[in-house]
């Protein structure tokens, strides 16, 4: 992978070829490996190394971009030439703002060498152990282990430069009973492979499968639910874009051409913020266009405190460009409750392990549809009574987190949404809510 010096030198070289009035150039590299298993066997396994150079230029405010994955001199020169050719005949970019000059970044660290240089034999052995564990319990294992390291160097014609390096290892395991009647799943990731507990991941998937045997049907409807952190993280997505809100086409738009800024949109115990130096979720200290990221709140005590202003939209509206978000942390402002406490206090309701195939239905209310998957249990009088067959839901996230709907909030955990395959991460808590809408039954296991 490219070092900081190599990245800086390549960026300098790219800029030296630029004749345009302004430019931003980048070079990146990646080292990626994976092992996939299913039906208690290894299916595919591989590794990939790649690099790329990107150029965006403006000539008299006319914009053009090009990229290539060769880093030799001829290819870099050609990429610049292509971008300038495009820019020379493109219309004026009405949203052009000059690229940034030198910035100062407070470093953040989410890179560990050992994650990128993992041992093939150790990985194969760890996965084999999980498969053997499943075989002993008459379960069928499937899963996906992957690890990568990546670097990125970016420079502007106005003198800014930054370099970042990150690593990530992830493991998901699905365990199914041999009769196909029950299934369990668990996914975790970490930038430090030493902190990826493969045994725990395998154990949790197996436990959920065994505890999901012989599910009973239930009528769809509106129920109190406990969402495990995985389920909450799968469903809850925030898009705090100011321009969409100002243009009237966002769940954060309000009648009369206004936005919901300053309104109490969520339960007062909820904070949503971004912090690149959070010890559990370190991430890039660089926000949009190279602006140094800051810890910042989007929702504080349930109140919509900030929307994300791009540099262009901030310029249009007389605001400061938003230095985030670079990650997402949803957290309780006060006392937290464990999953066991939530279950103990539930009179009647459902415990949801995770959600799947979540898609937007109505952007005005952040209404989403999707399915429960790999673990759904009926709780009554403080105890898990039996597993339940899956449901489709139609649920507004705004309604889910609204004042009056939240009963308890758990301690935020590092999770990765199922559909991301462990590529990203956020801090999300388990949630106990009064009302969640299940619209139809699903036979899927």
């Amino acid at each position, binding site marked *: 992978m490219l070092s900081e010096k190599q990245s800086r030198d390549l960026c300098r070289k790219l800029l030296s070829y630029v004749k345009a009035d302004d430019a931003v150039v980048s070079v990146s590299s990646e080292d990626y490996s*994976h092992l996939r298993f*299913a039906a208690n*066997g*290894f*299916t*595919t*396994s*591989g*590794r990939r*190394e*790649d*690099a790329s150079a990107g150029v*965006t230029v403006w000539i008299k405010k006319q914009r053009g*971009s*090009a*990229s*290539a994955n*060769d880093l030799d001199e*001829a290819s870099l020169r*050609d990429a610049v*030439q292509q*971008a300038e*050719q*495009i820019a020379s*005949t*493109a219309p004026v*970019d009405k949203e052009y703002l000059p690229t940034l000059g030198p910035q100062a970044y407070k470093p953040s660290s989410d890179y560990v060498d050992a994650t990128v240089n993992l041992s*093939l034999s150790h990985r*194969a052995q760890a996965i*084999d152990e999980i498969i053997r564990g499943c075989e002993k319990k008459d379960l*069928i294992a*499937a*899963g*996906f282990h992957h690890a990568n390291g990546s670097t990125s160097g970016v420079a502007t014609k106005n003198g800014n430069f930054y370099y970042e390096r990150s690593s990530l290892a992830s493991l*998901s395991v699905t365990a*199914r009973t041999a009769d196909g009647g029950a299934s369990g*799943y668990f996914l975790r990731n970490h930038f430090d492979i030493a902190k990826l507990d493969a045994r725990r991941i395998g154990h949790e998937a197996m436990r959920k499968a065994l505890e999901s045997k012989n599910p009973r049907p239930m009528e769809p409807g509106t129920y109190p639910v406990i969402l495990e952190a995985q389920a909450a993280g799968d469903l809850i997505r925030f898009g705090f874009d100011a321009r969409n809100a100002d*243009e*009237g*086409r966002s769940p954060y*738009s309000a*009648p*009369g051409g206004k936005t919901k800024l300053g309104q109490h949109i969520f339960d007062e115990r909820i904070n949503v913020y971004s912090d690149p130096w959070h010890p559990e979720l370190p991430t890039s200290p660089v926000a949009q266009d190279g602006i140094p990221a800051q810890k910042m709140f989007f929702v504080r005590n349930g109140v919509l405190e900030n929307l994300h202003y791009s540099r262009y939209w901030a310029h249009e509206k007389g605001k400061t460009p938003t230095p985030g978000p670079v990650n997402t942390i949803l957290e309780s402002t006060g006392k937290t409750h464990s999953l066991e406490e939530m279950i103990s206090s539930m009179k009647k309701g459902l415990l949801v392990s995770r959600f*799947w*195939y979540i*898609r937007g*239905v*109505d*952007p*005005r209310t952040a209404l989403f549809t*999707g*399915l429960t998957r790999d673990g759904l249990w009926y709780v009554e009088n403080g105890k898990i009574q039996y597993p339940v067959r899956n449901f*489709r839901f*139609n649920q507004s996230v705004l309604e889910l987190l609204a004042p009056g709907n939240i009963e308890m909030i758990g301690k935020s955990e590092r999770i990765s949404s199922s559909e991301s*395959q462990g590529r990203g991460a956020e801090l999300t808590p388990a949630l106990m809510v009064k009302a969640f*809408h299940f*619209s*139809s039954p699903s*036979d899927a*296991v």
Partner: protein
Amino acid sequence: MNLSRRDFVKSTGVLCGAVATQLPWTLPAATAEHSAVNRHDLAEQALARARKLGCDYADIRINKYRRESVFTREQQVLNVSRTHDFGFGVRVLYKGAWGFAASHIVTPQSIRKVTEQAFDIARANSRYQRKPIKLAPAEKVVAKWKSSFAKDPFDVPMEKKVEFLLKLNELAIQAKGASFVTSGLSFQNEDKFFASTDGSETEQYIIRTLPFLNVTAVNRSSGDFQTRGTLAGPKTIGYEYLEDSSWAEDARKAGEEAAAKLKAKPVEPGKYDLILHPSHLWLTIHESVGHSTELDRALLWEADYAGTSFITPDKTGKLEFGSRICNFYADRTQPNGLATVGYDDEGVQSQRWPIVKDGIFVDWQTTRDLAPLIGATQSHGCLHSDSWGSVPFPRMPNVSLEPAKENVSLDDLIGGVDDGILIYGNGSWSIDHQRYNFQFGGQTFWEIKNGKLGEMLRDVAYQSRTPEFWHACDALGGSSTYELNGAANDGKGEPTQANAVSHGCPVARFRQINVLNTNPSKKTT
């Protein structure tokens, strides 16, 4: 399922006749360097090394990809970009375990190193492999293939593309009440080289065109907003696809209908007869038929991500998938199909085969390592990877619904409905992990009463279960109603990869399907 969810699209070649400056889509030095690379010789080196290491089988892909994109909103161009991507990937089979490695550095030294990496991975995994992978035999093939196109979009000047989009935007935003419009063009070129230790060698050149446009109408005082996207889809085709007046017509209509949706009547939830236009139905086919008949899903290979299937191998030839008028076929030779190629990514020639015949499920989508698992002697040619750096695995071919043999029109189907809804275009979509329970939205919805088309409806989605849904199909349009649509970013696999795939179908009628009102201020069932 789709990665970030699909593309929708349509046409007109309205140019002012201004002289356009030709922007050659060439990277002179880079192209010269890539052309100087002798892919055959490099492949021979990789395969020879793999044989020497003791691999039972090996193949290599040395591929170049060009992409060009133009994105606009209203009368401004947001970005114009070109990317160029070149590299190779080696796949080996050693003692029944796969290993794969890839690099963007295409030199003899790198070829040797990467082949050895692939072997190391296969060897490390082979110690734990319980059921060795076996490959169905495939005919040795040495061939070249080119997709069908009249105008290479990479030779068309950028100004022409920008002008096309800005003109569509202008037409769309003219409608009273239309507030915003975004549009774009993407073009893909794949230049693929494949060789294997079986002696096969193929070279394929593919061009795809992917347009889209979306209009938003905002009612500022109420805070309501509605959208309408264009109805046609991406295809394996050249720039000639865009030189058609129907794009201008649909852009205009998109603006009008986005505004009209703000005032449309909210649907009453309940059971309705549905008539689904091909611009909508293709996605239902994709999710409920295309994905449920992927053999790797049925064998649990996709269990950790996209899921499995309600169809299992023992149901082949027996399962009543749908009504007797339902005939689905897979076809990698279908003209302009996004998944249409000459050979798949392990050199198996493209073919057409039935998936559902007279309502009965009859066959699967297979690859060389899947076919033996159901006793099939040959692969149907479904192996694919989305990049030189991606490990190839089973992907969906074009899967289409045959039209009625009779000349049945849309009006004929509408005439047979007392209380129903006609749906155009794609909206929200979601299906469960065994392809049973699904829910789909759309772009525009029209009431049908007593055999006649009525007023526009809004907030419509329908929910059903795959076998019941296809059994409820009681009428199909004829070939004059048949259209091809599709998506270029269907997501599957770990790591996830994109697949471009098309689905053709006629208009179709379905009886008594559950319809929801998606506006949460109303009760939904």
